[in-house]
């Protein structure tokens, strides 16, 4: 199983432990990664300013994968979601496809649409399979109870993404349970983490994630598990800010799913960048 690894922005520049742990667990699962040389931002962050620019940036990235004949794997659901929506829009709109290819011809590229794009959770569920993941678990983490945070772009909008069920998501739970961990349900499980408005209104963004943290704390979860680098930053980096500003205590470690799986596969915390996490993981590690 071989994929072109699309790095994106948040992971390589802010959440290196996600990339490190993903590389480790994928290696153990027999998934080979090919580097996508010269890739740029997926394009999503230009969408609010100019839709066509966001499409052109996405199409250029997709061309790089087409050149090496690989499907794309991303660690960020916003990247995979944007690529999937752009692919759908281009396949439905031949005029737009022509316009985009006219732009790409200036750098000698042509978008065809032959490469599929999958987020790592999707690769794990659909291509590797939960049963195969279980077979790599050497150290089941049966004493842990964690709160899964799905995020938005992994499933929405479902008309294009077609993965899991936004109203009743299950697949991250099943990936977590494959490691022997128990998932806890919580009131705000389906809600956005608020990260996307961080740059526009920090206080508002913090209030959204605070609501999630409160509902997770109520269920006494040992950790929060994420599959999005930006959601991870929001829960992990901003948790201490909330504790300071509101005089509250959470101290809930936030793990990338790949860190959790890595622990269950017998990797050491250092191999998975666990000490890079901002909320201390020592108490959590004493439970495994």
């Amino acid at each position, binding site marked *: 199983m071989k994929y072109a690894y699309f790095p994106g922005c948040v992971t390589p*520049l802010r959440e290196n432990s996600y990339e490190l742990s993903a590389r480790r667990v994928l290696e153990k699962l027999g998934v080979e990664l090919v580097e996508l040389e010269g890739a740029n931002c997926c394009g999503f962050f230009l969408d609010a300013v100019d839709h066509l620019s966001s499409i052109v940036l996405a199409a250029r990235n997709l061309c790089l994968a087409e050149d090496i004949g690989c499907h794309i794997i991303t660690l960020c659901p916003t990247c995979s979601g944007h690529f999937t929506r752009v692919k759908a829009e281009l396949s439905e709109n031949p005029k737009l496809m022509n316009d985009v290819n006219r732009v790409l011809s200036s750098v000698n590229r042509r978008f065809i649409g032959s490469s599929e794009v999958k987020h790592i959770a999707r690769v794990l569920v659909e291509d590797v399979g939960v049963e195969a993941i279980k077979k790599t678990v050497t150290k089941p983490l049966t004493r842990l109870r964690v709160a899964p945070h799905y995020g938005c772009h992994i499933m929405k909008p479902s008309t294009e993404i077609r993965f899991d069920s936004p109203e009743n998501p299950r697949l991250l739970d099943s990936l977590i349970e494959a490691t022997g961990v128990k998932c806890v349900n919580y009131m705000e499980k389906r809600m956005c983490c608020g990260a*996307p408005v961080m740059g526009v209104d920090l206080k508002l963004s913090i209030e959204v994630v605070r609501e999630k943290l409160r509902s997770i704390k109520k269920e006494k979860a040992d950790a929060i598990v994420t599959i999005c680098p930006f959601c991870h930053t929001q829960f992990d980096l901003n948790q201490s800010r909330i504790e300071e500003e509101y005089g509250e205590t959470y101290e809930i470690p936030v793990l990338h799913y790949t860190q959790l799986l890595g622990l269950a596969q017998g990797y050491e915390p250092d191999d998975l960048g666990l000490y890079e996490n901002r909320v201390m993981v020592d108490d959590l590690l004493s439970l495994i």
Partner: protein
Amino acid sequence: MPLAAETRRRVIRLEEINDAFSREVIKAGGEKLYVCFQCGTCTASCPIFKFDESYNPRLIIRSAVLGLMDRILNNDMLWLCAACYSCTERCPRGVRPAEVIRAIRNIAAEKGYIHEFFKTQADTIINYGRIWEEEEFVNEMREDMGLPPVPSVNREEVKKILEYTKVKKILASGEGED
């Protein structure tokens, strides 16, 4: 809000209505704008509205249907959408409010009303190919972890393809705005 101001907000004056604006929104990606029947499922599903009622997707959509251009374009509230797609997911009419709001933002940006944060971010993408500039400490950290350096972006290609879209002109027209 004091009563007089609230009344002024509720009363729509004929001279505020700009039909061309509605058509512009539809063309920019809000194809199903006119089928909205104002049920409010978008607002009820919105995580931002839950914490800040000044951001109201149902009101934005209604304003776009009526062509109340000035009320929505020059309004910071427009930039609070988290693009979580909860509204698009649940809209029983298939209006896809998140995409309509995206279309309105594009129009706002083109008319010089871009929010400063989005402007800065777009500038960074044009210049560096990513949402942040690559900093040396990140590579040091990656090396310590045994990761290869941050993969380089082909900045020349990014700059070149963006010459063919409107984005640079849009950012230039936003100069001097708040």
